[in-house]
């Protein structure tokens, strides 16, 4: 009997993961298009269904009917393997995410490392797809994407080390319970959150870090030769990734499902209200991702790499040492760390802008002017 319960539990977890991938991708596409439209003072898609909410459902059916062909020169097997692999990360990460009080797919005792390991599937898939396409744009896009994701994975792991030190556990349920009483890690260690959040945007290939798909340079990057549903898989993963990465961020830094009214409605040992809180927090973060994408211009490749290796990684290394020292020796370490971390964050953000401006001014002074000196 218990074996069947185990299998049933696994099946339900897989179905929930599938549902999250599909629903979040469809919702996010409309959400992003409507939010961008609102911010740019235009309408956006508003014809399909009430307020256009069925737009991406219609789009997905359209995509199903599109011709899905592979150019003659591609490596056919790898070309099909890439879209299959790209979804593994999106589905498999959800195994360890505690959606609500009393429900986790499987509470692995190495949850944090598992997340890092499984999200790397996307990098592999992009590299395989870009190489198999036998196209120059695809290859350059895939290499750029891999270099970017690999570079930003380092600061992300460095941030996760601080979270692991603060909870003394790698299990995500323990991370959530360590933040109980609204001592969310975003308040306790904002610098760590800052590093993690920027790295996660870069991992998603979004916002200011969307170089691998910069249309003006690389057509569609690694997806240039893809069409039909095989392209759809990359697209789906990208938009589902927004929600899934936000869920991970909420779990690690925003107290997970914590919120008032935990035990008001409990069905089969699973609380319902915390799930609502979890989704609200997740979509606040998804909104932030859309907002950042709209507000910040795309970086250059050299700026992108310099930001990871010359700012985030040294900062991450220093952050580990400072944070662990505080955890080890400070009484009431949460308060001490909060004070320290906020001061550091404000100092960095305050210094970064003037420094950047000065460097830009110097660069502009060096660059040969097109207009100066000509008649």
């Amino acid at each position, binding site marked *: 009997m*218990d074996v069947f319960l185990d299998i049933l*539990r696994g099946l339900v977890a897989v179905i929930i993961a599938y549902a999250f991938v599909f629903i979040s991708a469809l919702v996010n596409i409309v959400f992003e298009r409507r939010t961008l439209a609102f911010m740019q003072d235009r309408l956006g898609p508003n014809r399909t269904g009430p307020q256009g909410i069925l737009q991406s459902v219609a789009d997905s059916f359209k995509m199903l009917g599109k011709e899905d062909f592979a150019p003659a020169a591609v490596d056919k097997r790898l070309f099909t393997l890439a879209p299959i692999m790209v979804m*593994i990360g*999106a589905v498999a990460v959800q195994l360890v995410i505690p959606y609500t009080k009393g429900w986790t797919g499987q509470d692995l005792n190495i949850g944090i490392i598992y997340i890092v390991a499984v999200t790397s599937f996307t990098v592999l898939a992009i590299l395989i797809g870009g190489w198999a396409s036998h196209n120059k744009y695809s290859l350059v896009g895939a290499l750029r994407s891999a270099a970017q994701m690999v570079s930003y994975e380092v600061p992300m*792991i460095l941030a996760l080390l601080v979270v692991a030190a603060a909870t003394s556990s790698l299990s995500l349920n323990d991370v959530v319970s360590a933040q109980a009483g609204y001592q969310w890690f975003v308040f306790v260690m904002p610098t760590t959150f800052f590093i993690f959040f920027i790295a996660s945007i870069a991992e998603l290939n979004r916002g200011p870090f969307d170089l691998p798909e910069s249309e003006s340079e690389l057509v569609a990057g690694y997806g240039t030769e893809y069409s039909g549903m095989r392209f759809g898989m990359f697209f789906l993963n990208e938009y589902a990734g927004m929600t899934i990465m936000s869920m991970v961020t909420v779990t690690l830094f925003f107290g997970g499902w914590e919120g008032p009214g935990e035990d008001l409605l409990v069905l089969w040992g699973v609380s319902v209200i915390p799930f609502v809180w979890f989704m609200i927090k997740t979509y606040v973060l998804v909104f932030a991702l859309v907002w950042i994408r709209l507000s910040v211009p795309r970086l250059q490749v050299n700026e992108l790499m310099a930001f990871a290796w010359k700012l985030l990684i040294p900062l991450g290394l220093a952050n580990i040492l400072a944070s662990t020292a505080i955890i080890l020796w400070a009484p009431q370490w949460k308060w001490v760390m909060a004070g320290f971390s906020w001061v550091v964050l404000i100092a960095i953000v305050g210094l970064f802008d003037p420094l950047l401006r000065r460097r830009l001014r110097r660069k502009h002074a060096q660059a040969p002017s097109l207009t100066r000196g000509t008649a």
Partner: protein
Amino acid sequence: MPRDASACYSAAGSRGSARLADLVGVSVTTAYLTNWLYVFAFLAAGAVLVVLILAMEFLVNPRHPTPGKLSTYECGIVPVGDSWHPFAVRYYLFALLFLIFDVEAVFLFPWTLELRSLGTAGFIEVVIFIGVLAVGLLYAWRKGALDWH
């Protein structure tokens, strides 16, 4: 807090589903493996999902290949040269640097878990460890390996 090997195993197995192991009546190692069965089931589930969608698409989508359609896309002109050509070595440099820092993280994760029990001695060792790596990063920086020309 001393932890012997069996305590570690039971900590690994007791979360979530130790039931399968209890039924089989075998040691805690089985429960540990049950955890990993879930992981492999989820990895497979991700692949199966895409295979199902692609199979569904295969049934309905049109196929009208033409030579022009099947040629490699290069802004509409005939492709020049081979696309599988060597690429810049700087990607390799970043891959190497990534490897170093990724392995570093693997060494640091166990330390963060036993942070309090290892105390000052452990902290000093980690300071030396990170210091060596920081010097390495500084070396790469001075050598220009972090610059993207």
